[in-house]
Structure formats: C-alpha cells, structure tokens
C-alpha cells in the first residue's frame, strides 16, 4: 500500500512472542493511520474489564500515512493506551524522529501487550525485533537512558524511554524521545512501566512506497516553499510556542496559582523573549519541520538546590510548560521554569499534569488541608524549591508524592477536606495552559475532549477572543470543526503547527495525500475519517467506563462557580446553566443523545456499524 510501511508489529511481553501482519486495506481506508489506527485497535481488542496497569492493556505506537514523507512537519507519532489517568481512551502525540523511523522500518503500528518478568527494552531494527535486558537502564532518568542506549546501540537508532516516574506507575508519566520531545499526556509512560518496558529503540532502512514519487517531490517542494514565504516563518520560529505567553496573559487566560486566577504579573520574566535572551542555545525541530518550535536551552539549579554551579541542558520550556510550571506554580524566573522542566523530563513526568499536581498540593497546603507534617516541608507558590520537591516526591512515590502520583482527581478523593474544589481536571486529566473562565469555546473544548482536559483537540481560545467571549453563539460549531480538523493531523501523522501558527494552507494536505497513497480522497473524506475516530473514542469511553456520559463532561466547579478574582477576566466565570446549554447544543449537533452518547443512526452514517451493535448489547446506546 502506497504511503504505508505495510505492517503491524505485535509484541507480547508475557510470552515473548513477536509477529507481524499486513495492514488491512480497509483499516487504512477508513481510519487512515496514527490516532485512527490506535483508536481502532484499542477499541476492537481491549476488554472493558481491563485495568490500565494489567498486562492485557495495550500500548500502541502509530505513525500516519504522511509520516516520514517529504512534506512539512511529517514527524508525528501517536502513542495510545487505556489511560491510567482517566480509565478511558488515552493518547498523546510525539514529535522528533520516531514516526519516520518506524515507517522506514516498515511499520504503521507497533502493538505492545503483556508484561515482562524483568525490565527490558524493545529493539526494532527493520525486520529484527528483540526484547533485551534493561537492568542497566532501569532507575535512570529518561534523558540519561536515551543517551546510554544511543551510546550502546549507535547514533542512527531512534529511542523512546520512560523515566523513574513511569517505572513507579505515576499516572501522568510520559514517554520521552529525542532529548526533550514527549508523548506527555494520559500516562502512557506508566503503562510501559507496568509492562517493565524501559525503552523502544528503532532503526529503519527501507523505502516508503509512494504512488507518485515525482509528484510528491514537486508538491512537497511547493509546500516547503509556501512555508518559507509566510511571514510567520521568520516571526514565529525564533520563540516557538513560548511566544504566545504574553498574549494569553493579556487576554486573561493564563493559568495562575492552581487556576485561582488567569493573570500572572510575572509573565514578562518567563515569556519567549526572556527564553531567547537568557537561556536559548539552539532551535531544535522534529523530522521534516521548517519551523522548529523546540528551543534547546541551558540553565542552572535554583538558589538552594545545591546545583547552582551546574550547567543543565533542557529542551524548552515550551508554552504549556511555562504556563503550568511557571504561572500555575507562581514561578517568575525563566531559568527556574527551565530547571523544573528539566526535573520533569529526567523523571519522566508530564509537565502539564506535573505543574497542576504541584499547584494543587501547594493550594491545599496554603488552605490547611494538608499540613507540614504530611508534606515534610513548607510549601509556597512562587517557591521553586517547593515545586521541585513535590515533583521529585511524586515521581518516586515517596511521602505525599505517593498520593499526588495518582493525579489531582484521585489525590483529592484521598485527601478529602474539600480538596476536590482545587483539583483542576476533566475526566481525571489535568487542565492544560488556557484558563477558560472567559473563553466558552475553550471551556467546551476541555469538557468534550476524549482524553480529558487537553487543548490539542480543539485550541479555541483565539476564536473566543476573535468572536466575543461573553456570547455562546457560534462556539459549538467552531469546537466541532476544530475537533475534526486538528485530530486529523494525528491520523495523518503530521504536525499541525505549520497550519495553526504560520497559516500554512490546509488544501496542501488534500493535494499531497493522493500523490502519496494513490487514493483520491477529498478534504471532506479526510475530515469524515477524523469524525469517525471522534465517535469511536467516545464509544470507547462509554464501553469502558460504567456510567460514562454527560456527567463526565463538566469542568471543575472553580470554573463555573468562582469569578476570576483579578486581571483582564476579572469577575468572569461560566455558570452551570450556560455549560448545560453548550452541552445540549454540542450533543445535538453531533447527533448524540442528551446524555452524550452516539446514536445508532449516527454510528451507521460513519460506518461504525459494529460499534452500534456493541453499545446496544451493553445497553449503552
């Protein structure tokens, strides 16, 4: 099949059995690849009774049909699993050089099941696949073990690792790759940890078959040149995602001190300009990227860390990290944010959930819900030492960290004392870097994202600001449109930032897709595949979580009950009745029931007949 590696690789760690099978054409035609393959494989093969940390859970790595191909940003792989953070469908995409390498090795999906008896790593060298002993890497940092593996295997391998947090089953442990790229969200690092997989090393030497190689060369060139000619090519790239910091703050949407407010007066010390002036070493991009958002930096330990004289290297901080480890923890120094970024990266913690969890603990401390005796020290917003301490305790599951390691939702359930109010999450996944109390479309995006409160499904804050933030009008349509367009990039296996950030034209993807695959798909056909997957992951959650539906789609009470206390959004919040009206309209427009369940007719229209049967059998249609 043109555009595809052609094979699904299956590795069962319990039996040590490895096999490959050809990618069924029907799967590719309907689900395209990447997130589409991952969602379909998980939906079909996981029993709802499977616990996230049980050997039966699966971890899927899936590049897309455009991954590894000559076009801008062709380096994104989807990692997916039943999420230990939410108990539902979990995925996270990752840049770097893993998507392309998997394709060159001939694989469109790697499916890992079972659990090894002792720590191991998976070696994939074209057709040679082995599970090898990882005793010497186990316990080491995520970045440190990537370096060790490259030293041992050779520089031309591409390696993804987990850190100590994944080994200790921290429910928001990430998977790390290329010295600073992560599949950060939904705790897939912990699922690998539960399988005793420290790393995956891939090397591929094969050619990806293309329907029209000359056509791809010409169209790819046109696409790159179109990027070069965009004003954003020169203006956006020097700061990358960090460049948006000031704007988010100015519009009153910057997570601050555990989302207590949405404006941070220290933002000028942690923005893109500061990053560039103070700590940047080099721009660092993913495979095929003309606008490298990665900012590779140099920092030092914060005062009192004992590492003040050390030079510490880290990729970042990118915007989300600045928001959650910076503003949300009250940290007002770019070097300190970079240091905390480094701490998370080595430990293998998602910086978004990590920043949330630390901020949650600090707020609980300040409100007297957890005391000094329980924490082992004083905690303060704005104190880098407090945050570093909490992250380290969490990654090792020591002291209070053992509670925090399960994420804010579970931690609040355990701590009680009214702490639920300060647990900022949807479906168990902590909220990312846009405070939505004066941004209804962004709010709805968080509420309805399949994996929980993450922005990448629909980044609607700019739409809120452009079209009026006090009206609900038009918001639902926009969110649905974005929820089809943005995840489509994850089905195709490419980065969306060329489109989002520098205004690269969407029509190019429609134009190059047939040259790569030979299939005459229109943009509408591609969006339809994305909508199909959207309904499939919803169905996954309904199938796997008892009682899943509308009640899972509400944001934390803080967002609907507490007015923003200060800053540009002062006084704003979105009361429950408005949330309900958003949900009603959203479900209706999606063709879902009032409880947020896809209907038989809707599923049939999308060619998901089997899913309709499943849900009917469970009485959940």
């Amino acid at each position, binding site marked *: 099949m043109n555009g595809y590696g052609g094979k699904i690789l299956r590795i069962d760690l319990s039996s040590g059995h490895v096999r490959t099978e050809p990618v069924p054409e029907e799967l590719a035609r309907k689900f395209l690849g990447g997130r589409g393959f991952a969602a379909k494989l998980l939906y079909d093969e996981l029993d709802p009774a499977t616990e996230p940390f049980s050997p039966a859970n699966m971890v899927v790595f899936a590049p897309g049909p455009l991954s590894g191909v*000559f076009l801008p940003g062709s380096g994104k792989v989807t990692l997916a699993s039943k999420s230990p953070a939410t108990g539902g469908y979990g995925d996270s995409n990752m840049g770097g050089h893993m998507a392309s390498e998997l394709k060159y090795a001939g694989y469109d999906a790697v499916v890992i099941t079972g659990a090894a008896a002792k720590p191991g790593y998976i070696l994939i060298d074209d057709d040679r696949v082995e599970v090898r002993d990882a005793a010497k890497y186990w316990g080491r940092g995520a970045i440190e073990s990537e*370096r060790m593996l490259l030293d041992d295997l050779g520089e031309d391998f591409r390696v993804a690792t987990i850190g100590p947090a994944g080994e200790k089953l921290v429910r928001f442990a990430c998977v790390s790759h290329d010295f600073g790229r992560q599949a950060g969200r939904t705790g897939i690092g912990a699922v690998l940890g539960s399988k005793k997989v420290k790393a995956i090393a891939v090397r591929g*030497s094969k050619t990806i078959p293309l329907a029209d190689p*000359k056509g791809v060369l010409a169209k790819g060139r046109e696409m790159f040149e179109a990027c070069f000619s965009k004003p954003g090519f020169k203006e956006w790239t020097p700061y990358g995602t960090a460049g948006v910091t000031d704007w988010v703050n100015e519009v009153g949407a910057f997570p601050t001190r555990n989302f207590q407010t949405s404006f941070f007066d220290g933002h000028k010390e942690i923005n893109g300009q500061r990053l560039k002036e103070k700590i940047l070493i*080099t721009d660092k991009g993913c*495979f095929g990227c003309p606008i490298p958002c990665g900012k590779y930096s140099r920092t030092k330990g914060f005062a009192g860390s004992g590492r003040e004289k050390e030079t510490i290297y880290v990729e970042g901080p990118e915007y989300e990290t600045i928001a959650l480890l910076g503003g949300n923890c009250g940290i007002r120094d770019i070097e300190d944010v970079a240091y905390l970024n480094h701490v998370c990266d080595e430990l293998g913690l998602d910086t978004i959930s990590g920043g949330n969890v630390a901020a949650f603990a600090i707020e609980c401390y300040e409100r007297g819900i957890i005391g000094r005796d329980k924490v082992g020290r004083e905690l303060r917003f704005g104190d880098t030492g407090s945050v570093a301490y909490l992250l380290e305790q969490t990654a090792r599951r020591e002291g209070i960290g053992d509670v925090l390691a399960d994420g804010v939702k579970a931690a609040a359930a355990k701590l009680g004392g009214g702490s639920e109010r300060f647990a900022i999450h949807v479906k168990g996944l902590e909220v990312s870097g846009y405070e939505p109390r004066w941004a209804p479309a962004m709010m709805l995006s968080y509420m309805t994202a399949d994996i929980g409160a993450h922005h990448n499904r629909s980044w609607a804050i700019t739409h809120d600001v452009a079209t009026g933030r006090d009206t609900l009008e038009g918001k639902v349509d926009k969110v649905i449109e974005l929820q089809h367009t943005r995840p489509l990039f994850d089905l195709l296996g490419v980065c969306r930032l060329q489109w989002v950030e520098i205004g690269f034209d969407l029509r190019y993807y429609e134009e190059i897709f047939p040259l790569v695959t030979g299939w005459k798909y229109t943009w509408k056909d591609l969006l339809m595949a994305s909508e199909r997957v959207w309904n499939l992951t919803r169905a996954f959650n309904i199938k796997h979580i008892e009682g899943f539906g509308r009640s899972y789609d509400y944001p934390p009470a803080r967002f609907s009950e507490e007015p923003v206390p200060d800053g540009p959004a002062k006084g704003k919040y979105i009361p429950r009745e408005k949330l309900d009206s958003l949900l009603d309209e959203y479900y209706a427009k999606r063709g879902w029931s009032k409880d947020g369940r896809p209907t038989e007719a809707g599923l049939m229209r999308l060619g998901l007949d089997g899913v309709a049967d499943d849900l009917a059998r469970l009485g959940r249609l």
Partner: protein
Amino acid sequence: MKLRLVEDLCSGCRVCEMVCALHNRGEQNPKKSAIRIRGEFPVPGKYHILVCDQCGKCAEVCPTGAITRKDKAYVIDRDECTGCGLCVDVCDGKTMFTHTSEVAPIKCELCGECVRLCPRNAIVDLDGEIVAPK
C-alpha cells in the same frame, strides 16, 4: 558550486536527507541520501552536517575508474561500480554512504537540492550559483 555548512543554524529537521534521496534516487528514504545529520545531545546541544567535500580521494582508489570528476563534483558511474568498498574506507569524512540494497555507495554530486530546501540556510553555495535564502 561548493557547499558551505553552517552547523549552528541547523535544527536537525533532515529535510536535506529527504530531498537528496527523493531527487537523486527517486526514493522516500533518507538512508539513501548523500547527506546526514547527527545530533550531539544532551550536551552540548548541537547538530553536525555530514556531507562530502569533493576532495577526490575516492576517485584515486577506485579500481574500475567508476568515480570521475564532472564539473566541480566527483560522481559515481553506478554501472561501472562493483561495490568493492575501497572508496568508503578511504573517505576521511565518512561521507561515502552505503545501503544494503545498493551496490554502489552514495555520495554528494552537488545537485544543489539541499541548498534550495534547507529551511535554515544551514547549507549554502559558496560559489553563489544557487542563491536560496529563506
């Protein structure tokens, strides 16, 4: 043309690898390119660009005379090459690349495509025949 490498500008995207192989070999496969990018991470955090500098040592050792100078580049006649590997051994910069599915090694023949496509201007033509600033 003559390639000048500005490694400090390189962001590791490997667009050069892709276009080299697709343009010259007609294949979507960076392992068939004549240019390679090596990262040096986590310390000190930089990229290296490996490509032939047209020194000509390979032509001197080739027993079949398959490597000859054409204009400013040394080029391999892939029909004449027997795959003996002497040129690969003698190449100081280790920029004579091999691939298991190819008999002849792969080297830069100065087609200029990487200069045109490198998003960062990390590869430029010293002679100014190809001017492609971005």
